[in-house]
Structure formats: C-alpha cells, structure tokens
C-alpha cells in the first residue's frame, strides 16, 4: 500500500472511505482554522468540524460519487453546515447520530489551541500538515535557506535523507495547493 502522504485525497476516499482517518488527519487543521475564523469560537468550530467530517464519511459509506477535488467538496459541506447552524442557531449532529459516533469532549487546552488557529494563514496550515521530519527539512531549506549539508549536520542524518525529505515535502505541498484551487 502506498504511503498515505503520497496518495491523493480522492484515492483516500475510495473504497467507501475506509482510509477516512488519513483524509481527516490531512485536512483537520485547515478546516478547523477556517471554521474558527468564521465562527470566532473554538468549541463551535470543533463541533462543526466533527459534523462536516461525519457528513463526508457518511457520503463515502453510502457510495456517493467522489468529487474530483474532495477538499473543495469538504469546504462546500462546511459552508452548508455553517449556513444551517446560523439559521437554526445551533450546530446539527444528524450525520454523527446516523454514524452512531460518540460525542466529542473537548478540554480547555484543545479549545484554546483551536482558537489559536484564528490568525493562521492557509500556507501555515499546509506546512503544518506535513510530517515533522518533512516540515523541519522544508523550513530549513526554503525559509532559512540552509545548505543540505548544514541541515544534515543539524539533524544528524545524511544529505540524501534531507534531500528526500525536502523533495517529498515540497511535492506534497504542491499537491495540496493544486487540490485547494
């Protein structure tokens, strides 16, 4: 099976969403950042996010066609749920109830962490979505303009490993940006 960070969103949603956990991990931060910017409240953003992902998973499980750009579809669901929430003055939980999901219990720390996403840009979210190894290598090479040899010395690994991490990290960012358009 290919590594989860190298496959497209659509591939993750194939087979009735059996790899939905990877899809969630990939887009959790971006969706939460978006929802906290729209609602201004961490708890509401988390609640809405759970409902949006549950609705997407429910669609995959019932065999609905997977859109070409799943992340755009995810944000369309989010906008729909946001509008519903405003109209009803509460966040729906229909999708979560249908899937018999347990209720989300948030700690104060989680709420404040989500609210901390308020000022996070789209690029920040994408970079944070990389694995720790890739993020470290990409930031050192692209932002700090370090040489491969210096990064390798700092991370105590070979130059070829650093090159591979930078290359894979940038490839993943490129894929995410294309999907986001």
């Amino acid at each position, binding site marked *: 099976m290919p590594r989860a960070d190298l496959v497209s969103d659509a591939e993750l949603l194939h087979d*009735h*969403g*059996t*790899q*939905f*956990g990877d899809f*969630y*991990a990939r887009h*959790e*931060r971006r969706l*939460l950042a978006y929802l906290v910017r729209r609602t201004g409240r961490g708890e509401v953003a*988390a609640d809405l*996010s*759970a409902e949006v*992902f*549950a609705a997407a*998973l429910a669609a*995959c*499980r*019932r065999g609905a066609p997977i859109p070409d750009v799943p992340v755009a579809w995810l944000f369309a669901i989010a906008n729909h749920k946001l509008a519903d929430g405003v109209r009803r003055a509460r966040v729906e939980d229909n999708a979560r109830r249908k*899937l*018999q*999901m*347990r209720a*989300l*219990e*948030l700690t104060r720390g*989680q709420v404040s*962490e*989500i609210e901390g996403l308020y000022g996070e840009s789209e690029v920040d979210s994408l970079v944070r979505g990389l694995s720790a190894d890739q993020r470290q290598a990409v930031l050192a090479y692209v932002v700090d303009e370090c040489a491969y040899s210096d990064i390798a010395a700092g991370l105590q690994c070979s130059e070829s490993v650093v090159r591979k991490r930078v290359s894979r990290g940038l490839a993943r960012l490129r894929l995410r940006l294309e999907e986001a358009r």
Partner: protein
Amino acid sequence: MLLPELHDELARVAASPRPVRRLSGLTVSAFTAALVALLFAAPAAHAQLTELAVNVASSHLRGLL
C-alpha cells in the same frame, strides 16, 4: 493533531462494516398489493400486464437495493 479523539472515532466508523440496506416489510407489501391490483383490474390483458407489472416492480426493487 488537534482532535485525536475525533480522528479515532472517524477511523473506527470508517473501518466498521457498512450496514446492508434491506427492503422493509411495508415496501414489499405495497409492491405486492400494487401488482395484484393491476392484474385484477384488467383481466383481458392479463399476460401483457403481468409482464409490464413485473418489469416495473423489478426496476423499482433494483433502485431500492
């Protein structure tokens, strides 16, 4: 990850078997009743109507399944 509990819950549901959609007893009864009514309503065209009714009922059933 900010909400690992949500990730685990979604992954659990995603890995669980999907429910099988079954026809309810009421749906089957309604189709049977409609079929019988159709046959009795026009005995002269019995054969043609039987075929037509079976085709219609089958396609509806396929749609539901």
